[in-house]
């Protein structure tokens, strides 16, 4: 398959709708007109490429030059692959998160929880030739928001990925296994298929956990694959 073939459409139910009733902020920000489906051209099939030489990586968010952040140190490792299971090598991942108390290092965050002068809350990693990535951080705290009465976001780390084309651009959030807040969270539950939501949960991994150092979590990401699915292939003329 050509490396400029179009990317597959999303599997039904695997992506959120724009208008999500339980997530109040979507009410005035979701398009009311139907989307117009366009064929992917060079503009959608190709995309930017980032190199660590120009976009330096920052693989340890758990400390800054002046000291170490408060909180539970974690190692997160995983693979970025496409829908055919092929690794997505040398792609940039941007990360950002709240500190261990559930406060962002952001002027807009007025949650009454302490800031941590040793925690900036953003990182940047690149996958290796096998699509593997890894970084060190601290476990983010839960934080309140005003979507509904007593609304709390579950612990999560925000992810930004690019992949091989602009059509593979992905912004998502990684959650943590066993978080009791997941079932109440409108963003996590914005997905039509509960299995799609469950794939956003990082699993605790004792083999990634390092003695006397940090807990390990595994989180794999799948980006859109190129070309027709095998099912569609069977109906295509060659």
């Amino acid at each position, binding site marked *: 398959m050509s490396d400029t073939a179009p990317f597959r459409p999303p599997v039904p139910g695997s*992506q*959120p709708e*724009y208008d999500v009733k339980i997530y109040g902020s979507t009410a005035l*920000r979701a398009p*009311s007109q139907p989307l117009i489906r366009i064929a992917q051209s060079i503009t959608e099939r190709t995309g930017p490429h980032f190199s660590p030489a120009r976009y330096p990586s920052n693989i340890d968010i758990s400390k800054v030059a002046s000291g170490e952040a408060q909180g539970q140190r974690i190692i997160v490792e995983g693979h970025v692959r496409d829908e055919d299971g092929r690794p997505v090598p040398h792609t940039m991942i941007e990360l950002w998160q709240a500190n261990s108390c559930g406060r*962002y290092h952001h002027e807009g965050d007025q949650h009454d929880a302490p800031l941590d002068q040793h925690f900036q809350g953003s990182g940047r990693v690149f996958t290796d030739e096998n699509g593997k990535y890894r970084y060190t951080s601290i476990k983010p705290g839960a934080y309140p928001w005003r979507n509904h009465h007593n609304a709390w976001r579950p612990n999560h780390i925000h992810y930004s990925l690019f992949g091989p084309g602009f059509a593979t651009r992905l912004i998502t959030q990684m959650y943590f296994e066993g978080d009791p807040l997941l079932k109440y969270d409108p963003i996590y539950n914005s997905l039509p298929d509960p299995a799609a939501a469950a*794939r956003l949960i990082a699993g605790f991994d004792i083999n990634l956990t390092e003695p006397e150092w940090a807990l390990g979590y595994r989180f794999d990401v799948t980006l*859109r694959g190129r070309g027709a699915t095998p099912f569609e292939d069977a109906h295509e003329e060659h």
Partner: protein
Amino acid sequence: MPIATASQTIGPYWHLLRDDTWSDLTRFGATGDVITLQGRITDGAGNLITDACVEIWQSSPPVSDVFDGFGRAASNAEGLFSFKTLRPEPVPGASGPMGNTRQAPHIALTILARGVTKALWTRIYFQGDAGHDEDPVLSLIPPARRNTLIAHQTKPGVWHLDIALQGASETVFFEI
């Protein structure tokens, strides 16, 4: 078969990634027809959207050591975003029944924001360019809504396009 990971909103705190130099696509030394591309973003009630992450990607001019083709800008307190970049040239169209051989100059633009569950995809075209009538993407859009994708020049080199996420003047968004 693995299924692509779900999108989640970029939320209100994405500015932890923010680097305003990224809005200047000429910062690595690209030269050519330099333009400013700006616009104001509003929601369905006409409120300014002041927390959006706006990204652009252009397949022309081609990527080079001095031109990434990609930019990111934050919308400001007035709902305005602004990029400095190079004016694109026409590029080939998609093959197949929905495409033709040539697309008018355009730049892909996405809006990511709190309350936006997955990227909102649109394009910017340039008023007065040749090829709009034959452009395979513009041709799919009802004529009354085509102008939501066409930037106009407010002064030499400065192109403006407002973006409405919802409402009477709603921007045309794509399913890619």
